[in-house]
């Protein structure tokens, strides 16, 4: 994969631009937001977008733009943390199942199958209702939800690569299993894992928004795009921009990651 090839890839560039923009907002929000995200201004309730409030204000007169900025932190943190959890545990399961095979493989894959049988969001709802809503539990639930996808990709990669001559050669020169897995197999299967990570990232963000919309995810006062969407719902007639803008930002984030993933996959695909 070459950098100049990626630059010419439209999905990659569009997705990348969207994400750079959102990432910029997130980083800025760490130091500065136009208004305090929880500052109320009762004189300016449900104001439409204008020069002083780019995205308008909500029913308490809070600046929507500032709240979106603040909420992006939640999205990025939850996305990163849940993908990390899913990736690490999924890789572990995939490595054990794919590299050693046998009855461990059978057992682990049946568990993964069982997890896949439920729609992801249902699984997350179930986990949150057991552990209780909140920031940390949302991350754990979404992380567990991501495990099956990574475990399956990792398993198929290990099954494929353990038959490669260079892996057998490494075995023949006495390399330990741990070394073979970490130094010889993992780097070679990085591309499908990177693609899956970007896709799961958007899946997690969307699921977080969904959980928070249902009141099961991030709890007040932590800002969240999903909860903003549910708060905006009653005012859909009086203040349509509130719903529309919040929804558009979530869409942009999810679209950005999916396009980026598509682009990277195209770049890794040697046949093109």
């Amino acid at each position, binding site marked *: 994969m070459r950098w100049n090839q990626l630059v010419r890839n439209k999905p990659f560039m569009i997705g990348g631009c969207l994400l750079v923009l959102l990432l910029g907002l997130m980083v800025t929000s760490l130091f500065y937001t136009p208004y305090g995200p929880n500052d109320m201004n009762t004189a300016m309730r449900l104001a439409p977008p204008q020069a002083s409030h780019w995205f308008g204000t909500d029913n308490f007169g809070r600046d929507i733009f500032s709240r979106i900025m603040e909420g992006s932190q939640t999205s990025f943190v939850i996305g990163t943390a849940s993908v990390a959890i899913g990736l690490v545990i999924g890789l572990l399961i995939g490595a054990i199942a794919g590299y050693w095979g046998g009855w461990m493989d059978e057992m682990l894959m049946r568990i993964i199958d069982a997890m896949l049988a439920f729609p992801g969001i249902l699984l997350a709802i179930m986990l949150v209702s057991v552990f209780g809503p909140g920031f940390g539990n949302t991350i754990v639930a979404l992380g567990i939800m991501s495990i099956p996808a990574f475990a399956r990709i990792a398993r198929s990669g290990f099954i494929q690569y353990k038959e490669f001559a260079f892996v057998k050669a490494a075995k023949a020169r006495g*390399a330990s299993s741990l070394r073979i897995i970490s130094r010889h197999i993992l780097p070679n299967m990085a591309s499908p894992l990177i693609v899956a990570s970007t896709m799961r990232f958007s899946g997690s963000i969307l699921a977080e928004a969904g959980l928070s919309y249902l009141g099961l995810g991030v709890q007040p006062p932590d800002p969240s795009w999903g909860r903003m969407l549910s708060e905006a719902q009653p005012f859909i007639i009086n203040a349509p921009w509130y719903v529309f803008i919040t929804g558009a930002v979530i869409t942009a984030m999810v679209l950005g990651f999916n396009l980026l993933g598509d682009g990277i996959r195209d770049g890794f695909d040697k046949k093109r």
Partner: protein
Amino acid sequence: MANTLLAIDELDVAFTIGGKQYPALRQLSFEVREKERVGIVGESGCGKSLTSLSVMGLLPESAAITRGQISLAGKTLSAGLREEWHSTRGRQVAMIFQDPMTALNPLMPVGKQIAEMALTHLAVTRKEAKQMALEMMAKVGLSRIEQLYGEYPHRLSGGMMQRMMIAMALICQPKLLIADEPTTALDVTIQAQILALLREMNRSTGTAMLFISHDLGVIREVCERVIVMYAGFIVEDAPVQDILENPKHPYTAALLQALPSVEKRGQALYTIPGRVPPLTERGGGCPFAGRCPRAFGICHTITPELDTGMDGHRVRCHLYVEGRLCG
């Protein structure tokens, strides 16, 4: 005479397919002495590679040793003991493979892969391992070694990669090097260079070699002694010159006849009629009886013993008794 390094005694290896056992190596007995260069020759499917994998303890999951044993430098290698294999593989026995292009990790600089071998087995620091790798790369005839050290495999030619593989195999000074068709994937001029290098390495380091090939011409270049295998059996075992001048087993004779040479220029190449019987179709009797021009009655019913002649020339054929042709 030098000491015995590798001793294989009455080894049987069988594949289990669908609950049934199919013997793939039978009554395999041979020795490799220290510093000796031994060749194993035979058609595809005769058990050459399986023999080397047995020695490495790398048999495929469906295959297992059912009888007999392998000992290396006086120590019996048992299939079960993982630690034993870890200290043996690479340290005492190293292996080079048919296709160097696929035997190197595409995402790791080649020099690093050589150094990794030393790091695995010897108590050396990273720096020392790198130094050893560079020295070894120079020894196998590579130039611009500092630059090559950091190159990725796709930047190298097949010959360079096979030199890298040899450097990697010999860096820990193993007692035995198994070369499984090391020149098959290379073109002819490179092939000659690699064969010369292997001979030279055997001379300078004293590493014994077990050289596997289907090409008697290649074996002749490198080895002192040759073992001819057919359908899982050793059918003949003798010094190279002896076999070339005086092949005893009809299979060996046929292999020699099939070898192209300058004298046979313009003639049609000889081929042995038929094919090696697949695993599932091997029965009693001499394994070669079905294709043998000199087969007679008992060849089809009784498997001949590996008969040792006065001069140590071993042959598995009913035509010979104590090394002498009869009938």
